């Protein structure tokens, strides 16, 4: 603006180009033509050439690449205008030159359509007509995790796995001759304990086991007793200690149902 006051060439009379920012030379050119309510023709291009140049001379500073784009169109406009003003000369090259003018006209026409579509899109944005996809994708199948409520066989299994990992000796040590423990023996042991105590810690039972085999049999025995409704298994909290209690409602049947014991013998 300072530069303008310092002494710019006078603007063409009758029309002052707005100082708005244009998106490019075509945008500017089209705006000028529309302001004059002209159709996009070669004649119209010639008519707005002065205004275009006037805008260019007082255009806010832009980067050189952008400026060159404006200048390129300016050169074309000047050429078109000169062709319109001068009497036609039967030059051989004329036809091709006219073609070039028509090319600019076509580009402007196409550009105008895209500018209209841009306005259409802006209208949709302003109306706020957005569409939304799903916010959260449907859950993917996850691996079955340890249940958090109550005690289940799965919880026991997971605990056993942890325990087994802890119990596995780092190195093979010299061991006494392998003693085989049967399912029935372990079941009877648990049975005996529960006659003496109201509850038995599952961890304790495992700790008494001297081999991996015994641990497995102990676990198996607990499961079998549970399945047969002879014992209750309780765990207060996740990963907390597990207690085995006798079921008072079935306890009396333990002794009398000898066939159950023989079943256990058979399982082993």
């Amino acid at each position, binding site marked *: 603006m300072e530069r303008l006051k310092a002494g710019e060439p006078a603007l063409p009379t009758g029309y002052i180009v707005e100082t708005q920012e244009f998106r490019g030379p075509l*945008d500017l050119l089209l705006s000028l033509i529309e302001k004059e309510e002209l159709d996009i023709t070669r004649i119209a291009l010639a008519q707005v050439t002065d205004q275009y140049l006037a805008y260019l001379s007082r255009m806010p500073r832009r980067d050189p690449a952008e400026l060159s784009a404006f200048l390129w169109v300016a050169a074309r406009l000047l050429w078109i205008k000169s062709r319109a003003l001068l009497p036609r000369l039967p030059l051989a090259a004329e036809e091709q030159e006219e073609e070039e003018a028509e*090319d600019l006209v076509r580009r402007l*026409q196409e550009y105008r359509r895209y*500018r209209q579509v841009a306005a259409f899109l802006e209208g*949709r*944005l302003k109306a706020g007509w*957005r*569409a939304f996809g799903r916010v959260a994708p449907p859950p993917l199948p996850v691996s079955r995790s340890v249940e958090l409520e109550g005690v289940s066989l799965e919880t026991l299994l997971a605990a056993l796995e942890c325990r087994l990992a802890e119990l596995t000796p780092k190195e093979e040590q010299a061991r006494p001759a392998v003693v085989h423990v049967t399912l029935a023996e372990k079941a009877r042991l648990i049975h005996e304990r529960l006659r003496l105590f109201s509850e038995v810690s599952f961890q304790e039972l495992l700790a008494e086991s001297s081999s991996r085999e015994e641990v497995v049999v102990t676990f198996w025995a607990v499961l079998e007793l549970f399945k047969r409704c002879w014992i209750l298994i309780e765990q207060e909290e996740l990963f907390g200690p597990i207690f085995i209690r006798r079921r008072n409602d079935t306890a009396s049947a333990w002794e009398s149902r000898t066939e159950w014991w023989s079943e256990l013998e058979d399982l082993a």
Partner: protein
Amino acid sequence: MKTLLEALLFVAAEPVSVSELAQALEREEGEVVAALEEWAAEQASRGIRLLRLGHRVQLASAPEAAPYIERFLGLHRPARLSAAALETLAIIAYRQPITRSAIEALRGVDCSGTLHTLLNLGLIEERGRAPIPGRPILYGTTFDFLRHFGLQSLEDLPPLNIPETLPEEG
């Protein structure tokens, strides 16, 4: 068939292609397309619409529900797009896949910054490279573009009446 399609589209998290749907349903792609069109027509007055982009489809909410969804989910209105960005989008939407230089020829100005912005916003994506010297990147619009403007497909854009074939004919 329509019922099954609806169920598949409901559980699909991403846009799915017609061929994927056909495979899952053990039907011909042509049948799937016909059923999709029928289903989409029935949904015209419902809250869920079918978005189409090329051979892919996806469910989306009805555009008129946008203000309520924004309130429901606590979303902000999207940021305004600059005039240059809208213009560039318009060109890509009609002429995709299109190279940067072709866009610049139409707009008459450099577009690299604008393209970068649109890519970051996910409104356009790269669509391979043009088989011409330099193998320039081709750009196309995305499902986000459709959603952003509440369009069901590119056919929702106003028709473009340009004698664009003229230069080739000469």
